[in-house]
């Protein structure tokens, strides 16, 4: 019996080995749609026996996405392995017209691919982003894009989503995904915008400035620095010499609390969104009088006023795109008893939703100046 069991195990244990150096390891992939054809590109690491390693980009065009994969396989002597994939980039056109859910779904179903893959939108084309040769110190574009998105999502105002988050938000009622939007500047991929999605479709984009508020309201996470333009009239007691109409203040956020509550359900939903920011001043565009305990409130109130204006503008923009990345729908769903919110219901309600914004800024430090 013991031996029988052993032999069964030995004979059945024919898992296909995937030896490291026989794999064409894909670190990033891009998909585009051109007319009726899918276009795909992936970065493949090729290990060099001498000298430093190189990455190679292979491209293919076909009518189906599986066909693309087949074409790609035909171009290399290695087995294409997607286990090390870090970033998947989708073309703007593809995301706008078809939605990217079917493509993300295949990634999610592959057990070799982790769900911490970053997704991004390539504007205008994903393949061009993948083909870029400018990767700073990293050997391949996949690692570069991964580090670019990871760093900006962690410390800056970029809203990024991993495969897991994207799919979760896709299925969530009352919350839409957002992805970083990559563009080429002098041939180097950078993050210039944040792509807004409705379901799995690209509907518009927000600047990084706007994304600051979206991220703040959506997650309450650390969102980095923010440039706030203030009207000179608002802070006139602090001005030394009046010149121009606006003064730019750069704030570094230290601690943020945000709270969104549903205050009224009928006839139309009404939310109270309050943001409390504790921050320090990093830079001012003109010279100000010394900021003391007595006059700091002038600055604080002016910043609050400006921020409130900007938040309202962003919320209005989101509403016009019919997208809800902040998740008001979720809050609505949670706050109303015995309600199974459907996407259709929320679409209708969202247009009539009123959001009162209350910003509370306190400046803890004004920086060390003599």
């Amino acid at each position, binding site marked *: 019996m013991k031996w029988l069991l052993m032999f069964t195990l030995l004979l059945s244990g024919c898992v296909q*080995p*995937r*030896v490291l*150096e026989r794999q064409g390891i894909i670190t990033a992939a891009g998909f585009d749609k051109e007319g009726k054809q899918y276009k795909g590109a992936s970065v493949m690491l090729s290990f060099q026996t001498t000298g430093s390693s190189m990455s190679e980009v292979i491209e293919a065009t076909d009518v189906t996405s599986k066909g693309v994969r087949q074409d790609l396989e035909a171009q290399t002597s290695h087995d294409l392995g997607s*286990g090390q994939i870090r970033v998947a980039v989708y073309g703007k056109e593809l995301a706008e017209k078809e939605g990217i859910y079917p493509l993300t779904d295949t990634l999610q179903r592959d057990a070799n691919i982790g769900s911490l893959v970053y997704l991004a939108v390539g504007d205008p084309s994903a393949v061009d982003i993948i083909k870029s040769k400018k990767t700073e110190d990293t050997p391949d574009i996949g690692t570069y894009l991964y580090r670019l998105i990871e760093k900006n999502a962690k410390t800056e105002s970029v809203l990024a989503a991993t495969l897991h988050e994207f799919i979760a938000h896709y299925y969530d009622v009352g919350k839409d995904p957002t992805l970083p939007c990559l563009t080429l500047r002098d041939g180097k991929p950078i993050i210039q915008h944040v792509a807004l999605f409705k379901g799995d479709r690209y509907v518009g984009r927000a600047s990084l400035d706007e994304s600051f508020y979206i991220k703040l309201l959506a997650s309450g996470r650390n969102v980095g620095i923010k440039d706030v333009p203030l009207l000179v009239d608002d802070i006139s007691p602090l001005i030394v010499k009046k010149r121009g109409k606006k003064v730019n203040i750069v704030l570094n956020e230290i601690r943020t609390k945000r709270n969104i509550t549903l205050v009224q359900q009928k006839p139309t939903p009404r939310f109270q969104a309050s943001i409390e920011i504790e921050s320090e001043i990093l830079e001012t565009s003109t010279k100000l009088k010394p900021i003391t305990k007595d006059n700091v409130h002038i600055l604080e109130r002016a910043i609050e006023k400006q921020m409130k204006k900007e938040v309202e503008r962003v919320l209005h923009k989101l509403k016009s795109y019919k997208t809800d990345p902040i998740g008001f729908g979720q809050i609505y769903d949670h706050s109303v008893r015995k309600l199974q919110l459907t996407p259709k219901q929320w679409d209708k309600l969202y247009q009539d939703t009123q959001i009162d914004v209350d910003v509370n800024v306190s400046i803890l430090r004004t920086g060390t100046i003599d």
Partner: protein
Amino acid sequence: MWFTKKNRVDDVAKLLAHSPDFMCRRIRCQGKIVNVLFLSNLINHDHLQQNVLAFIHEQKHVSIDELARCLPIGAIRICETEKEMASAIRDGWAVISIEQEKRVLAVNIAEKVERSLEKAETESLVLGPKISFTESIDTNIRILRQNITDKHLVTEKVEIGERNKLEVRVVYIQDIADETNVQTVKQRLSELRIDEVIDSSVLAQLLDDHAYTIFPQYLLTELPDRLAYSLMKGRIGIFVDRSPTVIVCPTTFFSFFETTEDIYLRWTMSTILRAVRMLGIFASIFLSPLYVAVITYHYEVIPSALLLTIGESRSRVPFPPVIEALFLEFMIELLREAGARLPTKVGQTMGIVGGIVLGQAAVDAGFTSNVLIIIVALSALGSFTAPSYEMGATIRILRFPIILLAALWGLIGIFIGVSLLLIHLLKLTSLGRPYLSPVYPFRFADIKYSLIRLPIKFYGERPKTNRPKNSRRFSWREAMKRKDLDE
């Protein structure tokens, strides 16, 4: 039966296989003929001349009883038969027979060959006593008695070996060691039916609970302080004549990873050193199998920063990872074995040649990847951190089946290996006591004796694993109180 002088000596000579060094010194004294029989290779000649021959010569009245009373020698024995005489002579005694007397007198003038006391070689310590046991059981017992002055120390003598008799001493502290353990040891020793036992390591194998396991079940030590420590904690020691190592039992898996240095050093260092040792052992068993599994099946778990390094070094190697790993492991084993067999001076040179030159050449020639060289070297180092030589060897061998499992089924194979190993360890016993204690059966209070080390004040109780009759060592509170009064 009537003896004549002549045929009696002949009979004894016959029993001693007519050994050429068998001698019979005949002296005429007070009109009587006195025969002194001995094996000249075994005795101390100065002793013979000054204390035996000269003494007999000076006697006014010579008889066996008189000699037995006055001879200035510690160990004497009266013998009657030739067989007894022959066996005494074989032990290096001299037999004195007097004309017309049936009984003879055997006196111990043996001179045993032994080396002087030296520093411990296999279990070397940085801190603490350096002395180690030797091949002579008398010396060893003497060293032990110097180490333990407890009046309850018992050293029971058992003789084993049907042809080649061997003296074995079972030592324990009577009011600490568990009665059952002592009885088990004694019973197993008395039930041994074997012609001869060469060394204590052989005896340890004869006393094993499980003959087919790869794990050693008894600790062998050459350090008197380690033995004394174990005895005071309720274990039993078995001395074997002609062997410099002492068997300590019952033993647990974790005691193979302890050294007495853990007690000599302060508790913080010891805890960290024990953790380092455990990590080393763990790495030693699992690093190479993990390499094989990951490179063969699971390239997706390699961190992206390492991916290129590993990929580049692997791309030069023409073999599958498992062949590569087995080849390198075999090379290291070869180096170790060759180093152990060669004389010390040559061994060192060979270590350098083998380690540096061969390793570098193997990478340059594209036989192995340099990542694997690091891994194999690390795991070899890890196995050498085991303070017990036996356990170190076990761990080195354990790696091979797990590498094969990893090559067959990847990480799943490794886990199959770990599970089988764990099941096996759980089933093992040493002297009928669980091998994996204090982890299973879980004894919280004993963890401080095996996995970690705490400040001395927490060691007021003896480890429960040894089932001591008397578990109390000291009370920290009382010890501290006395100090307060002095102040």
